[in-house]
């Protein structure tokens, strides 16, 4: 069972807010009415909106297609890769275009039922494209927003950010860390804070891990290492970093890998090992492997499906006895790391969709809840205020504040405090927020909270002010955990 804040017999925070919205909606007019109905729709929508962002060529579209289990997002640099595109469930493939100016209009999907090349307007006049498709992957809890990659440092320009504003969570695709890493992170933190994203709703995906080892050997040990080091540095920015062999993941979950491809791989595996293994270590050798069993077109096809590293993994699997296609695909799937990614997304995001979406809804409603003595708005404000005192919502705001202070000043916390802060932000219930096991009693919670309150109070004395202020917020959340625990039946 998923861990959530929901107590038996009490409605979830999301349901609670949805009910208030439904109650006040009929009494509102104008912008407030429109926003409340929009939020209500979003709270009622059982799907979580997952955005995928990152720099150009970071492997974003590959990741989008992995989630779609279908190559719907163009992976080459066409106009479409410069657009914000939503993929969501629909009963038939349909494309709708929302221009910046003028009404939304429909467009037929391309011949392969993917996004058409021609959308009727130049890309820079299109606010977003919506692609509906009857795809079970989209029926099970999420829709995907593909944001355009730019070659700016973070890959998130103003236009990409407009897509992120509608997202509940972000999968930030980062290729192997480069020289500009610290600078990028700084920018990313500031950018995320601006659209209300923080450690609670951002997951790093370390893509193209085969390049970490220069395309030679098993990339996983190095990938794990890089992911671990970066999680430590980024713990207040991302909830976790998951390495992924992107193209292999897309291929094993998608529709392109066929029996024929499995046969080609088996042909390669059958070649005398010395020759074969030499060729498989060098892209150039493999591409020009005229003496091998495959035609040039076949070699290119396999590279397009798996990259050289993926082909090497497949050959290793066949060597180890994966003789039939199901066994081969299962092996590739395991080696791609995709199951870990899906499990992390489920655990961190889908399972606590309530918390994330409620926080996003509270922020959206706050923009229209003021400036009027309308009793409906007064009622709405009271609900927003009450929700703002719930630990689950405080945690989201603490996460946003932490990301921002880190961005602004390079928040300096000792590892203990950093760990405690990270638990407060990412914990799914009061026990996790204090780093306690499921078995911890209310008394354990109160004791642990009290200890942490002391720690935060010490930091509140400052300087610097940025850290002191964050410590205050952390302490206030911890206090609410304490008082919850002591008032528990």
């Amino acid at each position: 069972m998923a861990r959530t804040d929901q107590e038996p017999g009490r409605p979830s925070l999301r349901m609670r807010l949805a009910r208030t919205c439904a109650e006040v909606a009929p009494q509102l007019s104008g912008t407030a009415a429109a926003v409340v109905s929009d939020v209500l729709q979003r709270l009622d929508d059982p799907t979580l909106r997952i955005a995928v962002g990152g720099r150009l060529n970071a492997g974003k579209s590959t990741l989008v297609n992995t989630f779609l289990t279908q190559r719907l997002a163009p992976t080459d640099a066409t106009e479409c890769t410069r657009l914000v595109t939503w993929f969501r469930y629909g009963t038939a493939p349909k494309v709708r275009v929302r221009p910046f100016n003028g009404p939304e209009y429909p467009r037929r999907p391309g011949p392969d039922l993917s996004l058409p090349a021609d959308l009727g307007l130049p890309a820079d006049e299109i606010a977003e494209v919506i692609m509906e498709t009857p795809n079970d992957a989209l029926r099970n809890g999420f829709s995907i927003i593909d944001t355009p990659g730019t070659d700016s440092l973070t890959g998130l320009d103003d236009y990409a950010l407009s897509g992120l504003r509608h997202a509940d969570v972000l999968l930030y695709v980062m290729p192997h860390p480069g020289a500009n890493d610290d600078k990028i992170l700084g920018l990313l933190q500031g950018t995320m804070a601006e659209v209300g994203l923080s450690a609670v709703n951002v997951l790093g995906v370390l893509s193209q891990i085969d390049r970490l080892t220069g395309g030679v050997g098993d990339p996983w040990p190095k990938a794990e290492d890089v992911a671990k080091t970066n999680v430590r540095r980024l713990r207040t920015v991302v909830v976790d970093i998951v390495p992924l062999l992107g193209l292999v993941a897309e291929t094993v979950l998608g529709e392109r890998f066929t029996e024929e491809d499995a046969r080609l791989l088996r042909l390669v595996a059958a070649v005398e090992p010395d020759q074969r293994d030499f060729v498989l270590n060098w892209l150039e050798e493999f591409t020009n492997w005229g003496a091998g069993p495959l035609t040039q077109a076949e070699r290119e096809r396999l590279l397009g499906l798996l990259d050289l590293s993926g082909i090497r993994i497949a050959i290793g699997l066949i060597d180890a006895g994966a003789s039939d296609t199901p066994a081969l695909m299962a092996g590739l799937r395991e080696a791609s790391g995709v199951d870990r990614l899906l499990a992390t997304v489920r655990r961190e995001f889908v399972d606590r969709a309530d918390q994330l979406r409620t926080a996003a809804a509270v922020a959206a409603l706050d923009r229209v809840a003021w400036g009027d003595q309308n009793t409906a708005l007064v009622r709405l404000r009271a609900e927003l205020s009450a929700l703002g005192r719930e630990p689950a919502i405080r945690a989201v705001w603490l996460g946003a504040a932490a990301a921002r202070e880190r961005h602004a000043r390079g928040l300096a916390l000792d590892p203990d405090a950093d760990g405690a802060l990270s638990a407060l932000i990412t914990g799914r219930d009061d026990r996790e927020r204090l780093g306690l096991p499921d078995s911890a009693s209310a008394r354990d919670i109160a004791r642990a909270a009290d200890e942490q309150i002391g720690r935060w109070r010490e930091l509140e004395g400052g300087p610097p002010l940025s850290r002191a202020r964050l410590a205050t917020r952390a302490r206030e959340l911890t206090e609410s955990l304490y008082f919850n625990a002591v008032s528990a039946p």
Partner: protein
Amino acid sequence: MTRWELSVDLGATFTRAATSQDGSVRPLEFDGATYMPSGVTRDASGTLQTGQTAWGEPGHDVLVPRLAVAAGPRTRIGGATLEASELAAAVLARVAEVARTRHRDGPPDRLVIAHPARWDAEVLGRLANAASQAALPDPVWVSEPVAAACHYGAASFPAGTLVGVYDLGGRTSAATILLRTVDGFSLAGPPGTDLALGAGDFDDALSDLVTADGDKPPAPRELTRTRHELSRQSAGWLTVDASGSRIRVTQPEFQDAIAGLVEQITGLFMATVRQAGVSVADLAAIYLAGGGGRTPLVAGRLDQAIGEGPELTVWEEPELAVVLGALAAAGPAGPGGRRPVNRERERSSPFEDD
């Protein structure tokens, strides 16, 4: 007995108060200054000590009443539970005590408390409770932006007029667009609150400017003093260590160091204007309040950002705008003479504020 009134601005860093009698409004003085540090400590016997510096002295636990009442009914310190209202009551009692040295005729006839626009009835209830514990009258509420606007004379505008207020406190920022109504002011849009953008951040920036990696940073008090010096002079001297050695900091260096923060300030103001669904040209006046208003770059950049809007208004001692304006707003000549100016008693806040 001559009627007198007391106003209190319970800041996160400093508490300020003012009294009015026979039409004369004056800030209250605490040991010669127009402010008292807001912090409260608890001594070994459990007695609360007011006037404590809440920030900049790491390692000793200081409670901040403003933050405590906003966060919840109770707070924890050293394994004990304290009522938030009790902390605020200690500060209010201290203010009342100082006020009595000026007005010996007993308690004030009226108590006006300024509060962030986002505070809801629950939070105000804790403050009302505190006033009663301090043997003060039931407070008249004035929201901080309304108080600041009245300080600058916005009460004389006709109904329908829009004004903007930017309050740059030590820890936080609040940008507000107000609509003059027939009998007071109402909010024209959501209050633009930034809980992590205050004049204290300028001190952090100043500290970074003069401190190399690994060096001990200068004392917070010294940083604030130098910041104020730089607000009126082209260069200042910053004492960096106990030996008394000093570093010269010029106005341009300081301005460079805080440019990014000031950009966030103008950004917050412009975003608040947009969220209210108006443009700067619709505003009749824009006021700057709070101690951060002393820094010339803040007023300068805000004025530039406003562009075609009205010229920015800021007077000497902007940190007193709220406490002085609170009396004006609630007074007989103000828009809220008969009843609380802040009519929005059931207001709620999704974001706690300090």
